[in-house]
Structure formats: C-alpha cells, structure tokens
C-alpha cells in the first residue's frame, strides 16, 4: 500500500511552517509556565514554609470538629421520584422557528441533560450542539423572575389589567387601531389557536411572522412554482447525487439534524456495500456542509443565480424543456459534471439551494421537477413548518408602525430589535405604538425597549406542542416546575383575550378535538394522551396533495436573475452565514455554545471576517496562532471594525461574517462578544438576503487582535497518517485502500509495531469497552463536544484561557485541511489554501491498552481497568502533568485553576451560582484545581448500565449503555460497545474475532480493513478505532 502523499495541516501557520508555531509546539507545554496569579515574582522558600505552616494549622483546626451535615428527605415523596434514580421525560426543544423532539433526563426533579428522542421519525434520536446546550439556558440567572413594567418588577394581575384595558381602548379607536403580534415561526398549533382567540377578541390584530434567518425565498419560490407557499420535506437518505448551492444542510439549513441523519445513511459503506452518494457543493464561505462535500467549488454570491440558471439549462437540454436566460455564471468547475450526474440519477438526486431569492428557488424547483425528484427525494405531502416567516409582511409591518397605523405591538418570544433585517427602522418606529409588550424570557434588546414584559417559561418548564411537519406532532411536558414567576405565552394571550382557562387544559382540549379524532387505534383519550406524552410524538400522516410545476414561472424567474446578478463586477462581496453552534444568536448567553470551537475555523468566543489567504496577503495581514488584525468593513454606508480570520476555502473576492454575535442585552456571557452582522442583511426580490453583492470594502486598521482558536492546539508534531483516506474507486478495488501499515525495524527486519512492546498486555474477561468512529460519517458538527460538556461537568474557561491553550473539552474535533500540491512558497501556499479538502476527526482519550500515561504517573492516579478503560482518579492526582506530556494524542486536560465558585470564572455558569449548579451531573465529580482530567468513556454511564443489568441478573444488552457523544451524534458516526460480546454492533462493525481464552486485548484480531488506530506505529494499542475516510471523487491525474 502506497503511502498517502497529501499534506495535512490544521492551520495556515502549520502549513507555512511558521517559526513561532513550531517553537510553541516543540515545547512540552506551549503555555507560559509557571502560572503567577498575582503577576508578581515567583514564590520562594519562605513563602513555601509560610504556606506549609498555615496548611498544617488549617488542617488540624479543620480536624477538630467536622461540620454537621443534614439529610433532608421529602415531606411527601412523589411516587415517581426516587433520589439518585434518574427519570426521563419526552419533550420538545423549541427555539424560534426550530423544534426537535427530545428526551430530558432529570435527577431529583432537575433537568440535567437533553438528548434526541429516538421515537421521532424525523430526527431519529439525533441532536445538535444548540439542543444539547439548551438545558443550561434553563438555569440562566439572566432570565426574568417575573413580569416587568417600564423596567421595574410588577405582578401578573397588574400587567394583565393594564394590558387588557389598553387593548380594549385601542380596539375601540376609529383611527390607528392596529394591533400586531410579531413572532418567529410558531410551530405550536395550540399556541396558534390561542393567538387566534386573541385575534378574534381584537379584530384589528394581525399576526406577523418573521425569522432571523429567513426562508421566505423558499416558501415564496414554491408559491410561484406550485401555487402553495410551503417548504417541502426532503429525504437525503434516498439520494445518489446531491447538489447544494450554498445550502448548509448539515449545519444550519432548515432541519440540519434530520438531514444529517438521512445523509449519513448514504455515506455508510462496508465490504458488502461499496456504494455511496456523491455530493457537490457550490458556495462562498467554507461551510460545514461544504467541508464534507466530495466536490466543492468556491463561487461568488453573485454567481448563485446565473449558476442555478445554467444548471437549469443543462438539465432542460436533456429533459427537452425550454431553456431560460439568466445571465452568465462563467466557467464554474464541476458544474457540467454535476448536471450530468444529476440527470443520470434522476429520481435519486436532489438539488438544494440556500439562496433566499424566490427567483432562484423557482429555478431550483424546476430542476428538481425535471429530475423527477418530487415524490422520491422531495415530499410535498408533508411540508415542514419550520421557518415560515414572511419578509414582506415584516417590512409592511414596520411601514405601518412608522405611519402610525399600529397602536399596539406584542412581541411573542422574538427579538426583532436585534435579529431582524428591520431592526434599526423598528427601533426608531417603536415609540409610535402606545402599547408595547414582549414575552422574552430576559431583558433582551426588544424587551428593554417595550413597556411591558410578560416573560415566558423556558421550554423545559412548559406544556406545549409543536407540529414539525404536517401530521408530525411533538409534545412538550414540563420536566421541572417553573423556576420563576413566569407564565406561558399562549396562556398570556388567552388571558388577554378574556379567557381564564389554564393552558394545560386548553392544550388537552385542543388535542382531544383536533388529533385524537384523526386516529382510530386508541379509543380512550386518556390512553391516547398518556401514550403521546410517553412517546413524545404522534404521527398522523400528511395529506395527499398534488402540485404541478409552472414552467412559465421559470422564465420569469430567469429574467429576474439576469437583472439582479451581475457577475462581472469586480467589487468585494459579503456572504453572511450562521455558525452551527451559535445559530441566530438567541442562545448567545450560553457559555457552552460560546466556547464550542467552530467546526471550520475552530474559533471560540468570537465572530470574524473570513477572508482568503490571497486576500490576506494582499492586505498584508499575517495570521498566526489567532493573532490577527482588526479591519474596517464598509457595507454601503455602514462600517464596523471586525477581526479577520484567514479561512482556507474562502472564495476569492468574497468575505464572510457570522450573524448571532454582537449582542448587547443577552446577559453577562453573551454581551459584547463579536459584532452584530444583522444590519448587513439586504433585500432582494422582497426577501431578506444574506448575500451582499456590492458596496463592500475592507480597509486595514493596523490594530492587533487575537482570536481564541483551538485549531492548532494539541497538535501531533507533524506525525503523518493520523488521517487515512481513500477515494471510493480505490475502495471498491481494495477495502484496505488508504490504510497505512507501519513497520518498525528490528534486528534486521521490518516487523509490525505490535511485535515490539514494553508492556505485558491486559486480558479482559468481563467487558472490553471500545469505540469506533467512522470518519466517513462524521460531519464535524460538534454536537458531541457540547453533549460531553453537559454530561461530564466540564468547565467553561473563557476566551483568555482558550488563548492560553487551556480549554477543557474532553472531546475535540480535529479539522484537517489537505491538498495534493506542496506548499513551498507563498504562491503554492495560496493555491493549497484556495480550496482544500477537509477531514474531521473527533479526538478524545484513546483508552490505550498500552497506555503511556499510566507508566509515567508517579502516584498511580491513572490506571488501567479490567474492562479496557484508562481510569483517571482525581483524588489521587498531584498534578505533575507527566501523563499529559507522555500522551501522544494530547487529550489530557489540566485544571490550571479552580473553575467552580470562583468569581474570576463567572462565565462558567454551571459552577458559579446556585442556579447554574443545578445542571451539574451529580454522578460526576466537579474537579478541583491542580488535577488532570480526560475522557472517562462516560464511566458513570457504564457503571449504571452494568448495575441495572446485575440487578436484573443478566448481561447488559448491546445498545443499553450509550456514551454522551454517541447518543448526540446526528450522523451515527460513533459506535460504542463491548468487544467481548460477539453480537454487539461494534464487534460486527470491526469484524473482530471472538475472544479466545487467555487472549490479551492487544492480540485481538480485527478484520475490518477500514479500521485503524491513530499513530499505530507507537503500538499504544487504543480501544478507539477509526474508519478511513472515503471520498466519492475521481482521483486527479496529478497523483498517478
């Protein structure tokens, strides 16, 4: 097997072999040592003696009397709650126009973890970083504790009385009596019904829906194409060819968890199934989806329209349809190949587009119609209910407000003064309304500007429902009693509409009338309701609706494209985007999301202007180790100072900027992080567009800035073959393609590394826990990292400490760029960074059978278990950090500080106030300063799974014990299990031979040829196996 000749790099500094980078990574600890908290001189012998004297005195004093601790049982123990035994409740995560069916784990009545609901046929148990992090938002101290009037606390009775009387007064007016309810997409049919009752009471009321990240282009495009404003459901699991023009469907577009689950199915390969889908991506910024594409072409935002038109024409030529005009996309790489392949896989292909221009979406619909994808990969009978915002209605509302036609505005769980395209106009016009109400859960930008705030419950505190897709309902049930004196928003609406019914009863009644009657399986409503609550979901099936594509709309759309997209312009273009962690910024006060390193840039705690290396060279900006410069970004007449980040894969002539940052009133954690990009949203064909095609310029300021990137931290010192990959064609010929088999020279011959060993090996008779990670499925979305943080009480360290390379994440996702060509000089470097291939590799403790960390610990604080785990014992650790030094994978994390109960780390919300501490997992120790920690393979889950089996007198069943990362993974890339159980999924994935008696772990034979150990040459023999990355692309001839 020939060695892989590609160059892999984690960041530009590594590729260019930057001197500073090399120096930092050569030292044992790149961090500055020793730590001096006072900033003064280092301590001396006298200090040591003083401290020791004090220590002994303190210890003896402490020993005199142990504090009296209380054990306080329940007064009346609830039947279902047993202390120390977790309960699980099915519920629904709702945030703006997004919703995911989840299962909430509670301990002693406190929600501590949110996971996907496996019963949902949409998300199938997957979750995302935002869903995983949402449990911490419940315990956010910045939430309002009760209703507010003019910024001061009030009570509900006063608020209701005043709001109702003013509403009545306004409704009775002859002039200017408009009442507007403004919200993001409301997914709950019962909430909509409650709002409907409100509108019935006040007939001048109207409900305006907008979304921060608008999909109006799709609904409007579908209205023009089919006569129905909707977003169909997509099925990526059936595709052979998928072409995405700027749609980040694995990261942020419409329903990324669902699409990741589906798409991953087409990327699973094994010896018997050597087929996978092919994915083309055309985009400006390097997105999560683009980084997973087989072929990615960087394009200008202004090329989107013409490119889609060109693709339409290419397909139309084959389908015998009329061509359309639509401008000139120029020469776009892979466009012809993509069109040919789409045509060859008619009915098994899918074209999606992230553009919010209705005209572009009309052509996309035309392409899918010609390809016969409707009915196979696109389902119009069950349209989704996410992101139904109407941009036109929103702009009309602001106009109406400005002209005095609206007297009352109620903002229903939305924050348009921050995240709408009309934010500034709305801010100015809001004073013209006599009654302003917000139901925000905190004093956010909008709530701070209104008269009354009627704060809503957190989603974990409320009864509600959500209709994700027509006929696919998901129930929310409270998993904790409301923490504060908040009230559910639909109940507020009912109250203002003069109804006194409790929302829970209202919800049940609505279900009795609307959904119970639609099914015939269950005859008693109580049984139906109980089952719905237990499952969390009810699926009733959609309706049969037939649509015909209107080809006349295509030519109208093409004309519009021809006018709006001028590719010849040489000006810089700005492409706004969402990060998969931060999303639209509504959870900006969640430190887990702020510190999650972005899958692509690996940056934390910031947004930044992404520019290409060529452009950086032009501007004279050199970026190493996050050290960069602030630039002045001018868009039209607005200007903003923003740091730049050199992003490989950024299309030349474009810059990218993430929305969701620059909050001013999110709370202590989110305020002032990054810059606000929402004001740059512009209008195109009546829809909000994230692409700014003209009037963009960037000038340097010369001011230095540091972005806290984790990308080059914990690097492997240039050891090759960490990533092993092949193309599908190679794999078809040889299942072991791309594998590298190291051999070590010993006594005149080359032998396998496992033949030379210092260790005597372990035999595991009971369990042999192991994990496989399929790099072909992993999209890098980072849901696992947040899941791990929530499960294992991992502290947030803040931007400063990330800059000091002291982030604590137990699982990180290494993102490697690679390019075939070498990177010797500046020009070659630019070429290599122009459009690199990307590989994601989740990296955590490898639980080596020959663990190098164990042998160097002077106090035996890290030891090996009889089940294959590398154990870390915090109470034994004295903090020599020898283990971290000796770990070839750099997965050990040191507690440089006390991160809990420490005002210096007050952004670490989960450990620094009584409310935040409620999220901590009581089964996992909160680590003290000065000890090492690392992935424990969720040993608390293993122990409780084993105990459950023992109590029932049986062996654990495969799949019963799950890792936090594994269950979060939306693409099922992680599989955990027992290698001693021949029937387990992992044993079958690895095709491991059944354990013979007396066989040691290091001698087990794995027959799956894709499986490999990272750094196999060291023979540390990990229990984590990686599966080679297979790209479905034709190998370029340069590498023959």
């Amino acid at each position: 097997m020939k060695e892989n000749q590609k160059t892999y790099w984690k960041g530009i500094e590594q590729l260019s072999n930057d001197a500073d980078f090399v120096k930092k990574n050569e030292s044992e600890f790149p961090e500055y040592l020793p730590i001096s908290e006072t900033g003064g001189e280092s301590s001396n012998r006298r200090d040591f003696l003083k401290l020791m004297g004090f220590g002994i005195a303190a210890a003896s004093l402490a020993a005199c009397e142990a504090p009296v601790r209380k054990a306080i049982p329940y007064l009346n123990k609830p039947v279902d709650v047993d202390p120390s035994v977790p309960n699980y409740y099915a519920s629904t995560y709702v945030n703006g126009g997004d919703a995911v069916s989840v299962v909430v784990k509670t301990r002693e009545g406190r929600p501590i973890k949110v996971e996907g609901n496996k019963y949902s046929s949409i998300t199938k148990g997957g979750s995302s970083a935002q869903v995983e992090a949402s449990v911490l938002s419940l315990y956010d101290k910045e939430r309002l504790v009760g209703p507010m009037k003019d910024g001061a606390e009030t009570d509900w009775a006063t608020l209701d009385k005043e709001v109702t009387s003013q509403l009545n007064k306004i409704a009775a007016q002859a002039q200017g009596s408009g009442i507007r309810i403004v919200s993001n997409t409301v997914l709950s049919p019962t909430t909509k019904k409650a709002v409907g009752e409100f509108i019935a009471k006040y007939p001048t009321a109207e409900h305006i829906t907008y979304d921060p990240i608008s999909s109006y282009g799709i609904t409007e495009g579908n209205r023009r194409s089919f006569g129905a404003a909707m977003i169909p459901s997509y099925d990526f699991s059936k595709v052979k060819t998928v072409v995405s023009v700027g749609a980040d469907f694995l990261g942020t577009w419409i329903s990324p968890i669902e699409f990741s689950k589906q798409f991953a199915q087409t990327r699973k390969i094994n010896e018997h199934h050597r087929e996978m889908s092919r994915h083309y991506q055309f985009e400006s910024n390097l997105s999560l989806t683009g980084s997973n594409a087989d072929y990615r072409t960087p394009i200008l935002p202004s090329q989107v329209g013409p490119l889609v038109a060109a693709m339409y024409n290419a397909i139309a030529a084959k389908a015998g349809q009329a061509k359309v005009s639509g401008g000139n996309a120029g020469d776009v790489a892979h466009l012809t190949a993509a069109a040919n392949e789409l045509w060859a896989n008619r009915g098994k292909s899918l074209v999606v587009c992230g553009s919010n221009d209705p005209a572009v979406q009309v052509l996309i619909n035309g392409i899918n119609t010609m390809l016969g994808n409707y009915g196979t990969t696109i389902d119009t009978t069950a349209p989704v209910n996410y992101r139904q915002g109407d941009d036109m209605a929103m702009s009309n509302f602001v106009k109406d407000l400005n002209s005095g036609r609206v007297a009352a505005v109620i903002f229903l769980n939305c924050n348009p003064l921050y995240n709408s395209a009309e934010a500034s106009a709305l801010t100015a016009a809001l004073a013209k309304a006599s009654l302003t109400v917000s139901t925000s859960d905190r004093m956010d930008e909008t709530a701070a500007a209104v008269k009354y705030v009627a704060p809503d419950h957190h989603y974990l505190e409320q009864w509600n429902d959500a209709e994700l897709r027509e006929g696919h309902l998901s129930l929310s049930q409270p998993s904790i009693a409301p923490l504060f004196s908040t009230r559910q928003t639909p109940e507020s609406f009912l109250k203002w509409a003069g109804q006194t019914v409790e929302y829970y009863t209202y919800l049940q009644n609505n279900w009795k009338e609307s959904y119970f009657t639609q099914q015939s399986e269950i005859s008693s409503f109580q049984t139906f309701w109980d089952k719905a609550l237990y499952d969390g979901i009810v699926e009733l099936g959609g309706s049969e609706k037939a649509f015909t594509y209107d080809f006349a709309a295509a030519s109208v759309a093409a004309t519009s494209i021809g006018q709006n997209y001028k590719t010849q312009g040489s000006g810089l273009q700005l492409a706004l985007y969402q990060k998969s962690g931060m999303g639209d910024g509504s959870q900006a006060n969640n430190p887990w999301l702020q510190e999650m390193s972005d899958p692509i840039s690996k940056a934390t705690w910031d947004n930044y202007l992404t520019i290409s290396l060529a452009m950086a060279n032009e501007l004279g900006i050199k970026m190493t180790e996050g050290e960069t410069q602030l630039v002045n970004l001018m868009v039209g007449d607005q200007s903003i100072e923003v740091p730049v980040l050199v992003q490989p894969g950024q299309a030349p002539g474009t810059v990218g900027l993430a929305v969701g940052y620059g909050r001013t009133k999110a709370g202590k954690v989110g305020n002032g992080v990054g810059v606000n990009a929402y004001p740059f949203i512009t209008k195109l064909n009546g829809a909000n567009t994230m692409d700014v095609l003209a009037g963009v310029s960037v000038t340097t300021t010369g001011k230095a800035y540091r972005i806290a990137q984790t990308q080059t931290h914990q690097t492997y010192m240039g050891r090759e073959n960490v990533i092993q990959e092949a193309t599908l064609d190679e794999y078809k010929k040889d299942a072991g393609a791309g594998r590298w088999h190291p051999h070590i020279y010993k006594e005149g011959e080359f032998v396998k590394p496992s033949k030379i060993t210092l260790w005597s090996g372990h035999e595991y008779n009971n369990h042999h826990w192991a994990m496989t990670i399929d790099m072909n499925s992993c999209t890098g979305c980072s849901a696992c990292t947040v899941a791990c943080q929530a499960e294992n009480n991992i502290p947030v360290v803040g931007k400063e400490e990330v800059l000091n390379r002291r982030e604590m994440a137990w699982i990180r996702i290494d993102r490697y760029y690679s390019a075939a060509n070498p990177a010797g000089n500046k020009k070659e470097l630019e070429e290599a960074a122009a459009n690199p291939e990307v590989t994601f590799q989740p990296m955590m403790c490898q639980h080596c059978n020959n663990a190098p960390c164990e042998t160097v610990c002077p106090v035996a604080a890290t030891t090996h278990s009889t089940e294959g785990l590398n154990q870390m014992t915090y109470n034994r650790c004295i903090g020599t950090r020898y283990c971290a030094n000796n770990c070839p994978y750099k997965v050990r994390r040191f507690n440089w500080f006390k991160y809990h109960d420490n005002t210096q780390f007050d952004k670490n919300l989960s450990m620094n106030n009584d409310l935040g501490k409620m999220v901590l997992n009581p089964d996992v120790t909160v680590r003290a300063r000065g000890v090492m920690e690392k992935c424990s393979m969720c040993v608390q889950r293993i122990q409780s799974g084993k105990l459950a089996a023992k109590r029932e007198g049986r062996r654990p069943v495969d799949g019963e014990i799950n890792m936090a990362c594994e269950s979060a993974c939306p693409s099922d890339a992680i599989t955990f299990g027992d290698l001693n159980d021949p029937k387990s999924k992992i044993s079958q994935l690895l095709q491991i031979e059944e354990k013979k008696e007396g066989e040691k772990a290091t001698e087990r034979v794995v027959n799956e040829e894709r499986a490999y150990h990272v750094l196999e040459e060291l023979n540390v023999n990990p229990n984590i196996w990686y599966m080679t990355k297979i790209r479905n692309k034709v190998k370029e001839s340069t590498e023959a």
Partner: protein
Amino acid sequence: MVAKTTIVRYATAFFLVCCFVFSGKQVFAQRDAVPTDPEIISQGEQLFNEYQCNTCHKVDSKLVGPALAGVYDRRDLEWIYSWVKNSQALIASGDPQATALYNEFNQLVMAPYDLEDEQILSILAYVRDVEENPPMPEVAATGDGAAAGGDGSGIPSSYLNIIVAALVVVLILILVVLVIIIGVLKKYLQDKEGLDEADKDVVNEKFSFSAFVKSPTVIGIITFLVIALAAKNVIDGLYTIGVQQGYQPEQPIAFSHKIHAGEYEIACQYCHTGVEIGKSANIPSVNICMNCHSQIKTDSPEIQKLYAAQESGKPIEWVRIHNLPDLAYFNHSQHVKVGGIECQTCHGEIQEMEVVKQHAPLTMGWCIDCHRNTSLNTQGNGYYDKLVELHNKTSGTPMNVEDIGGLECAKCHY
C-alpha cells in the same frame, strides 16, 4: 368363598380409607390447597419480601396485624384473596369476618395490593412452609465464619506471645551470664599483679548512673524515641481526620431503630425505599412514617413532631451520620440488591441501637478490605455466570470482589 371374603375385606378397607381421606380433606381442606412446591414457596418468599408483608405481619406471632400461621385453616381462600386485594371493599361489603378483624386490630387499614390470586397463594405457600419448617437458629454458620477467620495465613497470635516470652527469658539469662562474667573477670584482674595505673582505673571504675544518663548515646536514643512516638501519634491523628466512626449525633426526633427494626422486625426496606434501586438508601419521608403513625402512638410527643412537620410543610432535618466524601461513589443497590449484603455488615447491629451511630470507619482501607475478602454473591445472577466459570478454571478459592476488578479506581472514583 375365599375370593369373596377377600373382595369384601378390600372393599371395607377401601371404604374406610376413603372415609379417612375425605374427612381429612374436609378439616384441612384449605391447608392442603396451599402448595408445597419449593419453586412456588421461593416465589412467595420473594413476594413476601418485595411487598414487605413482614412490616405488619409475622408468621408465628401478632405484630401490627395478625399472625399469619394457619390463616388458611381459619379462612376461606377466596376470602383471603379479596381481603388482600382490597380489605376496605370487603369491610364495606359488610362481611362479618372482615369487620370483626378490622375492629380487633384497632381499625388499622391494610393497604390494597395489586396481586394475582396465584401470587397470594404462593405467599401462603411460603407462610405454610415457614410454619411447618421453622428456621433453625444460624449458630453453626457464624461459628464457621469465625473459625475461617482464625485460620488465615500467618502465625497465630498465641504462638507469637510464647515466642516473645521465650525471647525475653533468653535475653535475661544472657544478661545474668554477662554480669557473672564481668564479676569473675573483675575479681581475676583485681587479684592479678602488675597492672599499670590506667588499667587499674578501668577495673576499679564505679558505675555512675548520672554519667550514664548524661551520656550522648542515651540522650540520643531517648530523643529518637520521643520524636518517633510523637511522629507516630501525629500521623495516626492525621489519618483519623474526617473519620467519624462512632459518630452518634442527637436527632430531631428520638427515633429508635431498636423498637422498629429490633422489636417489631420491620424490614429495613420498608422505610429505606431506595436501598435496592438506587445509590441512596433514602431517609424515609414523613408520609412513610404516617402509614403506621396515623394510628399508632398518636399521643407521643415525638410522633407529634411528625404531625407538626406535615402541617407546616417543612421536612424534617435529620442529622446526616454517614458522610462519604464527594469524591467517592457508593451505590446501595449494588451492595444490597446485587451483593446481598446485610445492612448490619456496614451499619452494625442497627436493630439494637436506640440512637444510630456510625459503626464502620468508612475509610477507603475499610472498603478495600471488604472488597478483598468478600466472595461475590453470584448465585442465580446471569451477569456473573461466565466470570465464575472462568475464575473456577484457574482458582480454587471463591471469586472475590477483587477478582473482577473491585479494587479499581474508577469503580468508585469518577
């Protein structure tokens, strides 16, 4: 004729036997309907414990409720079934037996149980089994245990004492012999002519006690001993920091385990509900106390505290006795349900404690000792089958907790 007589004789015998058998059936009809199949008995025993019948009932004597022995003779089986399932309904239906029973036991309500007829029958089978084969006192078993402990490896302590005594005797003898030798030699030298002055000084030197005490060697040795003893005390003292063995705080309510667990033999699990399902054994909530104390001893000032708690809505703040450090994970269900360990093993003779005190030191050494020496309760637990088989292939001793990784750090620390 002979044949006829024989037939008549047989027929008479048969008739008599039938009479006997059937009359017997009439008298003991219920008892014999109760099965004696060991499987059913064990099922009944399990149910008896699971539903904690023993909280109110004993087989041989009256407790809160009547003694169960012979209940199948006293009552109709169908009556027993309906009584167990819902006694209140039976009383309400005006059944005279039920009403009489209810009144006899101070109108204490027996809670309804969701049991099948066969399950109740199996409980009766267990009761019958206990009645007919009363359990033997378990003297022999403990005797064995003690003997086994004594037979451990190393030299028995009695031998050690003898050896030490012999050594002391030998040393004294040596001392005596040495003194004699010195005397003899001295005498010999004094008698000898021609010694120079220096030698004479040595020979005639008087033993001075003060000089001996002031000699650097003696001072050195004494200083060393003092320091060593002090150091040992300090180290021993440091090891006891945080060890609260014997801790016996006063509790807000003078609850007596001696009465509840000792005299009335209420199963521990009746109040400590979590002990078989979770990490915590659970201090009972007031509603559990009220199961009985809504009727019993309602006038006692201690019981009044329960009512006060219920009325004020404030839970009772017991003083926590067993304080494991947060870094150690301990799970009751692992030890009690899976391991089958008696509560008394760690908590001492709780049934004799008027006020509970901490019996065990709860140090890591104490945990480890037990994990080293305790053989696992693997009987009938499918989890261990393969492990036991593997263990028995290589070892003649029973499988200890240690043998399956019970000493590993991450079993308790994570």
